[in-house]
């Protein structure tokens, strides 16, 4: 299967592991991810104000490029996925945004939100299938207690993201189970880590602490994430505490496929 792939700025710099393990795993699973040419930073946060058009343009360029190739657009970073998916929804249903974006971009053909955006996890669940993935596992992560950390951006708002049940998701737990590990559900797995608040407030991050303590309380050994910012905030809060480690989901995938 051939897909357009959007990496995003952080995956080329501070979060190279998230991308590296995803790409080698995709090869093993027979997924062809073609990195888009001339992709631009998505802006990291979805512009919430109705009149903010410029912040949505880079996402539309990627969406239109994938659509013109007739390919689904695959994302890896939770933030990029959030931005691109929500902008796509605007292009589909918001006449005000659609008209202004198309007037500005002057693409060969107007873009109207037709592309399909899938996060890598959705690709594994919906196009590959977790049962097929489980058959490919060479080194099952048997006995490892892993806690999924969803955070905000993949799940909410659920009417647009359509990723999983926003209050009680299971896609990451199903993924962990497919890799042969034990998925531990802990109360704070869908809570926010503080996100960009780290630039506004450098004091103790009680939001990240709540997540970590909640996971440690249920003897989670590894917390799984798809977001470089969540990983950063959680690791910063963790400091020298080695009770739990924060891991990208792709790293565990590559490990289970015996290609790490």
């Amino acid at each position, binding site marked *: 299967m051939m897909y357009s792939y959007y990496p995003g700025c952080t995956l080329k710099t*501070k979060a190279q592991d998230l991308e590296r393990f995803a790409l080698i795993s995709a090869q093993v699973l027979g997924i062809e991810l073609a990195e888009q040419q001339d992709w631009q930073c998505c802006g990291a946060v979805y512009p919430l*104000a109705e009149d903010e058009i410029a912040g949505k343009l880079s996402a539309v360029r990627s969406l239109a490029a994938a659509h013109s190739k007739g390919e689904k657009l695959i994302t890896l970073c939770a933030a990029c996925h959030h931005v691109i998916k929500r902008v796509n929804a605007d292009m589909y249903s918001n006449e005000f945004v659609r008209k202004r974006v198309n007037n500005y971009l002057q693409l060969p053909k107007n873009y109207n939100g037709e592309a399909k955006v899938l996060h890598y996890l959705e690709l594994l669940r919906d196009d590959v299938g977790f049962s097929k993935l489980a058959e490919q596992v060479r080194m099952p992560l048997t006995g490892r207690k892993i806690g999924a950390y969803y955070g905000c951006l993949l799940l909410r708002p659920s009417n647009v993201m359509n990723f999983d049940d926003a209050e009680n998701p299971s896609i990451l737990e199903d993924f962990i189970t497919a890799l042969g590990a034990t998925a531990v559900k802990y109360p704070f797995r869908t809570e*926010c880590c503080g996100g960009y608040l780290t630039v506004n407030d450098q004091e103790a991050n009680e939001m990240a602490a709540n997540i970590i303590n909640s996971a440690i309380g249920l003897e989670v050994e590894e917390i799984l994430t798809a977001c*470089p910012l969540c990983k950063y905030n959680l690791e910063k809060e963790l400091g020298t505490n080695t009770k739990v480690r924060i891991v990208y989901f792709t790293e565990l995938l590559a490990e289970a496929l015996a290609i790490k």
Partner: protein
Amino acid sequence: MIRVKITPNNKQSQLQYIREISGVNINKCIQCTKCSAGCPASARMDILPHEIIRLLQLGQVEKIFHSKSIWNCASCFVCTERCPRNIDIARLIEAIRLTIIRQPGKSKFKPDDVPGIIDDKMPQQVLVSGFRKYNR
């Protein structure tokens, strides 16, 4: 609920601007407080999300402009997700922030602030989102 005075003529233009760029109908709020109950950043807020909406309904935008709450909203969308009246509270708070930082010199996070917070592990995503949220 905090006791407030109704001051309809105060800051009407700013209130109208917030309504416009958020696209949110604040009159739909029934003060059920689900937004505040679910907000993970509420410990950092002096005015809770449902109180922000109440103050907007009563035209008291000045109190909100001076609160630390609007800068401590992480746009995690829990409030938006859970509102039984489908009010997009995250959008509303963003509109309040923008009403302030779109004024000249009112950016909350500036390039000069970067050296003070950056470290080796900080992902680019932090700075990009920081500038998008706190700077114009």
